[in-house]
């Protein structure tokens, strides 16, 4: 259970290259996901007004981790404990109130048949929103039931209630070997103001905020490894060029673009000290370049005469780059070393492939591919860059592009127009639990960072 992400071995038959479905990034190692129950928490006094937001956030976070079998609230006993003393020791009572909820066995036996139960209460005390949260392993075979018993503090408002719920959920997920995505950020392009600008939001779609105000066309956000900077491309200074901003506070770090009709698709090196990008400098568009964060010390890496864009350096090794090239015809995904040598095509050559994004483990990429569909109808795939085996995560539900891994390596964000307009969605690495994060205007090109 400690290791979340592992890759089932698959036999290496030639047929599997085309039909591999038995390999993939699996979200949970357990054949049977742990069954978790979270009855609605109640709040004392002022806190009660924020409990709708609190309970929804707690449920969504734990459910969104993709690790658990969330048991529906309708199957719970009528009485939900609010603190450990609410449980009657089943052994000490001659006639435990079976089915009422006061006995732990009411929760561990059918109908809920839980493995774990989260419970607690909130109160507004001296102007502070206080959550008292417990997470119990209710299985009878376990001697020490309490996994978590902790107090969480926030402001007495909806934001404070959500914060405590996020933190409690993060502890629950961590206790079972996962990693919460709460606290990470998704950058994306939104056209809701009329112009494409860079925006940011929390991984659940909350707290959406505008980062750039160029009133131009601004696209292709990428996040630095430490989450402190973003790089992107904008026509704000006439020609498409690269910008690097710090995000807290938002500030233009004044990247100096080399003179070229196109500088685009920046991404950070694993040490965060340089960027790789595509440029038309010194020839036709585009070759892959590397440069410092101020634009100095630039040098080309690739020398192809084809269009080459979207370089992404392996975050684990720092020694290889995946990128998109038209050198063999329709755009495909390639890999090369940092010196441009040992070029290898990863996608087989059919359809059009784009938007490669490294999994944090440096073994897998997610990407968009039209294989099996009409030109322009991209779906999200993942691929093992060593074996070239791939699996398809979306299945022609509109156009699906620009996948980006969460820092936990379990979630992905991507753009889909399956709802009718381009919006940002998240899903688990196995393609399950798709969730729409944006609704206002058109939104695209998400990048998930710390």
């Amino acid at each position, binding site marked *: 259970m400690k290791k979340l992400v592992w890759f089932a071995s698959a036999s290496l038959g030639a047929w599997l290259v085309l039909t591999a479905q038995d390999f993939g990034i699996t979200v949970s190692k357990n054949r049977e996901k742990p069954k978790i129950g979270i009855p609605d928490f109640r709040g004392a006094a002022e806190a009660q007004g924020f409990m709708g937001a609190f309970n929804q956030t707690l449920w969504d976070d734990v459910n969104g981790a993709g690790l658990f079998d969330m048991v529906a609230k309708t199957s719970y006993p009528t009485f939900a404990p609010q603190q450990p003393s609410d449980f009657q020791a089943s052994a000490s009572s001659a006639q435990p109130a079976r089915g009422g909820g006061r006995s732990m066995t009411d929760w561990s036996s059918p109908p809920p048949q839980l493995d774990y139960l989260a419970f607690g209460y909130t109160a507004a005390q001296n102007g502070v929103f206080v959550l008292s949260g417990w997470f119990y392993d209710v299985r009878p075979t376990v001697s020490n039931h309490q996994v978590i018993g902790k107090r969480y503090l926030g402001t007495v408002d909806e934001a404070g209630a959500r914060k405590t719920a996020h933190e409690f959920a993060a502890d629950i997920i961590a206790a079972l070997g996962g990693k919460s995505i709460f606290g990470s950020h998704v950058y994306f392009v939104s056209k809701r103001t009329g112009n*494409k600008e860079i925006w940011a939001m929390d991984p659940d779609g909350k707290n959406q905020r505008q980062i750039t105000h160029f009133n131009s*066309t601004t*696209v*292709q956000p990428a996040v630095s490894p430490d989450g402190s900077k973003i790089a992107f*491309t904008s*026509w704000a200074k*006439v*020609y*498409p060029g690269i910008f690097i901003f710090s995000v807290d506070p938002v500030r233009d770090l004044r990247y100096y673009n080399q003179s070229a*009709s*196109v500088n*685009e*698709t920046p991404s950070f090196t694993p040490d965060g000290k340089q960027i790789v990008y*595509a440029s*038309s400098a010194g020839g*036709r*568009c*585009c070759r892959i370049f590397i440069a410092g964060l101020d634009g100095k010390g630039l040098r080309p890496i690739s020398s192809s005469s084809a*269009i*080459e*864009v*979207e370089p992404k350096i392996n975050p684990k090794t720092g020694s290889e780059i995946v990128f*998109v090239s*038209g050198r063999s015809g*329709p*755009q495909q995904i390639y890999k090369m070393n940092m010196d441009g040598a040992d070029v290898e095509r990863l996608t087989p050559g059919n359809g*059009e492939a*784009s*938007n490669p994004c490294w999994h944090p483990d440096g073994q897998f990429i997610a990407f*968009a591919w039209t294989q099996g569909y009409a*030109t*322009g109808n*991209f779906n999200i795939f993942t691929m093992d860059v060593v074996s070239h085996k791939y699996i398809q995560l979306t299945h022609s539900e509109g156009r699906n*592009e620009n996948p980006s891994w969460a820092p936990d390596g379990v979630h992905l964000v991507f753009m889909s127009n399956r709802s009718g307009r381009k919006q940002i969605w998240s899903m688990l690495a196995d393609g399950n639990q798709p969730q729409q994060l944006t609704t206002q205007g058109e939104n695209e*090109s998400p990048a998930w960072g710390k």
Partner: protein
Amino acid sequence: MFNKRKFTIVWMAVMLTMFAAGCKKKAAPPPPPPPPERPAEVVKPPVAAAPVVSQFAAEPESIQRGQTSTLRWEVTGDSTSVSINQGVGVVQKTGNQRVNPSDSTTYTLTATGPGGDTTASATVSVSAPPPPPPPPPPPTATVTLDKRLESDVQDAYFDYDKSEIRSDSRDALTKDVAALKNILGDFPNATIVVEGHCDERGSAEYNLGLGDRRASAAKEFLQQLGVPPDRLKTISYGKERPQCSEQNESCWQRNRRAHFAPGQ
């Protein structure tokens, strides 16, 4: 019954006969009485008087070149024909006619009758018009650069995922050469931007490169035909600025283009 039918048949026969007769000729009216005999006494006809031109005038008498005047006339007495020279020709005894002589002209009306001819004349004086207002300034001075590019310069279109100039685009760009040279001459300080555009299907990132290649290919073609390259800039918009958004080949083709716009 029988008698009634017989009567009807007879009656119809009579009517048909009458109708048939009517078809041949109208029922002849009784002949008019013969005209009375002319009186035997021969009256000597009176001596015919020449016709009288009671009016012949031009109104107005003076016009500027290009304007018209109206001739009015009235002939009384016994006349057999009335005519006006200067191309007007035979006219009624009374009438009017619009004329627009380019120079001063005297019109002569001749009324002919058994009693002789009578003539009258009317003169229309034509003066030179005032000098025309100064001609409107040549279009280059008021039509903006983007209007000129829009009306005079054609887009060049491309195949999917290609930046080669295909034959119809060669024709379009070849025609564009003269127009671009004229426009650059009329706007000596302007630069023209060759924009590269793509359809929506490929990835946005790749299309930004493809649009750059399309713009460059169009510029190089124009340069070879003598358009000064320092007056042409290229910029790629990839698929960020489509001119249509329908998902069909007709719209996709419209968006796969090199387009000309004023420089910044």
